[in-house]
């Protein structure tokens, strides 16, 4: 009887020891979240804002968060594909490929995303409505323009990711490429077997940072009327003033607190996930190699 219990407790102890850091971090995070929640809840009890309002607006905000996640599901893969392509291109030996890729990066990195998004929206509306051929065939330019705004945001994120990818590729020491050449690997094989595996792992922290920031950047799409979390929040605030319960600064406060929390939850989950990936796939002994 005592034997298996002891083994189980040993296993449990070993498990706790192995994951001590994770438990500590989770504990700190949990306590911080609880403190914030208690402060906000206390303000509600004290009547600073309406607790029932806080619960009532949640379904609409969740719908908005769903839209935001949908946008993220488009922007991150498209942005990563563009970033990889153009970042890879920037390390090319051909001056033509290099200049095309550099133009892309500098163009999309040099403009604020909100300007890019508006620019894409307006230019598509103008293009479709001014070209008779398109105008008779496309009944709903709004949908096209909105989609193009999403792509513009992806291209903006792609320009940052291109730089991350380029830095990742360049971080692989030239000596490794030369060694691969010396043992008869082709350029393609060197890229696939030597450079890319290390580049992806070196770039992971920076990419994770960019992914987290893309989630927040999708809020910019609300300026062209995409019904994401930010748009739904603004809409709730404006309707508070036209509903029988009325609106006040404190009800604006509770709406924006909930929006902030929802964005935080999304961003934090992604950053934790990437941190885990980073640990899992870190280059063994890279720190020592740098010394």
């Amino acid at each position, binding site marked *: 009887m005592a034997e298996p219990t002891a083994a189980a407790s040993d296993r449990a102890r070993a498990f706790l020891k192995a994951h001590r850091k994770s438990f500590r971090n989770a504990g700190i995070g949990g306590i911080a979240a609880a403190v914030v929640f208690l402060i906000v809840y206390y303000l509600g009890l004290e009547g600073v804002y309406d607790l029932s309002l806080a619960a009532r*607006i949640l379904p*609409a905000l969740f*719908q908005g968060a769903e839209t935001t996640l949908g946008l993220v599901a488009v922007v991150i893969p498209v942005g990563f594909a563009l970033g990889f392509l153009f970042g890879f291109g920037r390390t090319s030996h051909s001056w033509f490929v290099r200049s095309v890729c550099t133009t892309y990066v500098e163009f999309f990195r040099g403009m604020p995303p909100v300007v890019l998004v508006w620019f894409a*929206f*307006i230019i598509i*509306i*103008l293009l*479709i*409505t*001014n070209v008779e051929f*398109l*105008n*008779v*065939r496309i*009944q*709903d*330019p*709004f*949908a096209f323009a909105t989609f193009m705004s999403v792509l513009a945001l992806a291209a903006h994120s792609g320009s940052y990711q291109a730089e991350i990818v380029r830095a990742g590729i360049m971080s692989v020491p030239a000596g490794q490429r030369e060694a691969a050449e010396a043992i*008869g*690997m*082709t*350029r*393609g*094989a060197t*890229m*696939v*077997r030597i450079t890319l595996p290390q580049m992806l792992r070196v770039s992971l922290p920076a990419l994770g940072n960019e992914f987290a920031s893309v989630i927040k950047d999708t809020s910019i799409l*609300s*300026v*062209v*009327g995409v*019904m994401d979390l930010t748009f*739904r929040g*603004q*809409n*709730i*605030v*404006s*309707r508070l*003033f*036209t*509903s*029988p*319960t*009325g*609106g*006040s*600064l404190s009800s*604006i406060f509770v709406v924006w607190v909930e929006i902030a929390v929802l964005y935080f939850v999304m961003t934090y989950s992604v950053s934790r996930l990437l941190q885990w990936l980073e640990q899992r796939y870190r280059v063994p002994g890279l720190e020592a190699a740098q010394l």
Partner: protein
Amino acid sequence: MAQGGGAAPPPEATRGGAGRSIGVAIVVVVAIVTFVAGLGLGYFVFNPPPVKAVLVVGTNVPFPPFESYNDTTGKYEGFDIDLAQLVANALGEQMQVRNFQDFGVLLTTVGRGGVDMAVSAITMSGPIGATRNGSMSFSNPYYNANQAVIVLSSSTFTCPNSICTTTQVGNKTIGVQSATTSEGWVDTYVTPFDPNNATDIHRYASVSNEIDALRTGVYQLMIIDAGPAASIVASSAGAFKLAGTIITNELYGFAVAHGDPKGLLPTINSVFAQIKSDGTYDQLITKWFGP
């Protein structure tokens, strides 16, 4: 085993492997993308313009009670939306509402036929209406509106007999929505007679931003159409009050593309005439503006 008699392997053998498969993969991907793009282009080039089945209606929320987005039902609603639905019913088409976040962009888009119809409390009379008539076509008017001035409840600003003129409004900080008749009125009657530039005008793309700014004291006077003004004040739970009305006698109409190429105006006008004679119009007025 035939070892080739110890001769050097042919160049194809050394250049195989990952390098070649990457090349093949790129060719395949480019081929697929080109093929799909060609299909899409072919659809536009060779297909005749699609048969209309949907009435695309452009609007700009929030502008209650004329138009707003209802978070609970997830639908656009309001006086204008109900009227537009009646028009869609008369045409036998589905109505698709598109929310443009910028009123100016909506007007440009409808003028060039980017949406079939714009329903957004659009003024068709006066100097602004005359300008708009040059770029879009209007139905018969369906509503007669004035402007109103909203202030914070704590404000000491008043107008004699609740009729505000440029005399009272000048030299204040004023908030208006861009591209609206409110902005037009300020720019026509206030700004030109203000040699010292003492009137500070804040222009907002959407009414929700305008309301937030008034509530937080960014400016003093909010000038907006009288219909939404009454509804904003009535439901602000005492945060705002109506300082007075600016008599402008504006007429609202539905806007369609310049010259009405799709022939929508006769149907719209006959719907207006019919609902005014059978009492539906009065019911809608009661529903949205109160008895």
